[in-house]
């Protein structure tokens, strides 16, 4: 539950919502906690909210590490398993 996962913003929607792409999975999340989010930004997502922006390199590094550790799959399941 402490983990946050990086993802790329692919679309901005009304009501502070955004669509992010995560390993080919599309997920609707809230960007209400951040100012000035743009399409193409990488954000760290925690319980369905973008907590902060990260660089593309940091996002790639974190994802690779999570994949190697086998955490990525679990996190993706948690994210896609919720009533979205």
């Amino acid at each position, binding site marked *: *539950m*402490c983990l946050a996962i990086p993802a790329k913003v692919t679309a901005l929607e009304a009501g502070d919502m955004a669509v992010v792409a995560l390993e080919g999975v599309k997920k609707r999340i*809230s960007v209400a906690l951040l100012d000035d989010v743009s399409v193409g930004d990488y954000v760290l997502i925690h319980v369905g909210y973008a*907590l902060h922006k990260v660089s593309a390199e940091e996002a790639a590094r974190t994802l690779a590490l999570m994949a190697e550790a086998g955490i990525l799959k679990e996190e993706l399941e948690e994210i896609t398993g*919720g*009533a979205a």
Partner: protein
Amino acid sequence: MKYVDEFRARDLAEKLAVQIAAEAKPDRTYHLMEFCGGHTHAIFRYGVQDLMPENVKFVHGPGCPVCVLPVRRLDDAVELAEKHGVILCSYGDMMRVPGTKQRSLIKAKADGADIRMIYSTQDALKIARENPDRQVVFFAIGFETTTPPTAVAIKQAEAEGLENFSVFCNHVLTPSAIGHILDSPEVRDLGTVKIDGFLGPSHVSSVIGSEPYEFFAEEFAKPVVIAGFEPLDVMQSVLMLIRQVNEGRAEVENEYTRVVTREGNLKAQALVSEVFELRQSFEWRGLGEVPYSALRIRDAYAAFDAEKRFTVTEKQSREVKSCECPAILRGVKKPTDCKLFGTVCTPDNPMGSCMVSSEGACAAYWTYGRFREPAKQKAEAIA
């Protein structure tokens, strides 16, 4: 070094391990508390302890949101679902935590209570919109990372006029817990828990910033290094702590500058202080009552406070007898000190919250350390 093989940066990890061994003075010990369950998890998953010299030890802290929730609050949530007939929305981690008489949310659900596992507070709002004739309660738990999403949901419910939505608020604060641990008799007087420095939480700090820790560093003369979740981050931070200890410094340093700033996420902080205020006191599992350590919903948003909307009964809540979670959460005991560990209590059949959450110390020991600790002890006994 088996565990290091599992990640790509193994060369770097080995270099850091050599550096740590070189700088840790052999004539003293370094007890470093990782406050956050995410770090506990990373330390075990990657076998970081194995890369440390004998005199550098991790003390596991209480930073697992599921683990520190007192049983009474969980019993209250079960009562909300069972007696008041609400739709109770909970994060997944909480579902299997045993309450009094081992009653968990998942058991209550199996018995017919309407309990829904959600991923985001947005899901709870959606359920409230879809069920206008039902009361929907979000069982809010967690530290500073999950609090802002709860604040957003409450504000959104107000804006939409979602009158059937409320929040059972159990949000707690990291800095107060660290202060409480440093002030505890075990640390201050008895010396049963030794702490020479802290690994500060990653994502919590991204929200609150590094500034709130400056107080402890000064007041208690303990160094704090805010550490990322990756094993290399943890090792780099250990090195930074060792250097501070060696040089007699007690400062707040930030290893995780990739994400954490001194002031944190100001927008999130503003939302939280708009919706929540400090409770005078809140019970933590393991730590007992901790003053000013939790949040409650401000009067302006009282309409969305489940504690005001529903009256729960006074109850005699009880932990599972001989579960050592409370002592483990204070750093006084280790999971292997618990009689039930690995026998009666396993992740499939958890007796306490520390075994349920993957961030709990018992679950981490079981999953990654179960066979190593006894083996190491044996090796030490023979040597």
